[in-house]
């Protein structure tokens, strides 16, 4: 994989494997569907550029998540003129809905609402807490999160605990 990416090949494989993670990073920063797509495109371009310099000193996942979050931070700074950037709008959730096809309509509705609340709560978190929590939800270890964010492992633990407490107030039944 590393050799392929370094040689300018294998980008498609990386995007096929990690495209969903990158999309969720965009979703955690943008509520509006059009803005999510714009941010995802920006992230994809940044990742594409970044992969050509990937040397294999971390996992591909950690590497691209660093780039994705950095790009998202830049995006937020660039969007200061758009007042609605971080406001959550029910109509912005997209036409596909939240639930998978394997659930019943009741489950879908419940999951839809839970996910709606979760996304809303995540987007209201401060940057560092949002990053630490979403990376944790993606299955990254404390060490990996510390590496992405530039924090100590202990600091990650403290931030994650607070972020979860904040989220659980919004999602008491999760």
């Amino acid at each position: 994989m590393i050799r392929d990416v370094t040689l300018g090949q294998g980008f498609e494989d990386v995007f096929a494997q990690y495209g969903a993670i990158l999309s969720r990073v965009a979703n955690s920063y943008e509520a509006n569907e059009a803005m999510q797509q714009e941010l995802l495109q920006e992230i994809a371009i940044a990742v594409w550029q970044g992969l050509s310099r990937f040397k294999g000193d971390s996992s591909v996942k950690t590497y691209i998540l660093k780039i994705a979050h950095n790009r998202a931070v830049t995006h937020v700074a660039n969007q200061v003129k758009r007042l609605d950037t971080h406001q959550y709008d029910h109509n912005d959730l997209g036409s596909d809905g939240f639930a998978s096809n394997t659930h019943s309509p009741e489950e879908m509705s419940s999951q839809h609402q839970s996910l709606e609340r979760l996304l809303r709560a995540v987007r209201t978190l401060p940057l560092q807490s949002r990053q630490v929590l979403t990376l944790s939800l993606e299955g990254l270890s404390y060490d990996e999160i510390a590496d992405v964010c530039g924090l100590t492992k202990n600091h990650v633990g403290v931030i994650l605990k607070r972020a979860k407490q904040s989220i659980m107030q919004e999602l008491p039944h999760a």
Partner: protein
Amino acid sequence: MHNSDKENQTIPPVSIDDEQNDGLSALWQAQPVTTINLSEVKASLNSERTKQRWYMVLDLLMIAPGVYVFLKYWDNMSNIAQILILFILISSLPFLAYQLWLRSEAAFYKNTQTADHLAKLTTQIKNKVRIAYMTKHSTWVGMIFGIGLALERHFFGDLASEKLARMVVVISLMSIVMLVWYVWASKRQKRFERQLETLEKMAQH
């Protein structure tokens, strides 16, 4: 357009340490995602590279009038005019080099840690505020130098009356351009100041 998330099925999440957290993680990963259009990414990448190259060409062209005057009229200039032209050229070179460096920096995305990225981005935006401030004030400074050159030609050179009239027209047109440029640079400065405020708020948490 949704993808099923297949990545990292084998990685045990060290950070999620109880059932409640597993539920939260499962809920998070159940959200619909957008498929990345790779052909659009490639096209945007190429377009962005072309755009950056054109910006660099425009940056370089900014000093072209000064270089042209320097090469074409140097021998016919008085000492004062030569000093003015040299001052304009020499003072614009570091500015140009800095501008080109900023563009090349912006063109490359690095896998720095977010805390470092935020700090670096904040520094970059501070520099952009400074550049916009300098650009804004370079308009009226440039006009003073332009008028100074015209006055020097008028009092110390053998300027014919029709040439003087043409110079007045040119300076008037330049004044309008510089005024527009001043307003544009001022708006940019305010926009970068708002960005800086946003970044500083982000860094506080």
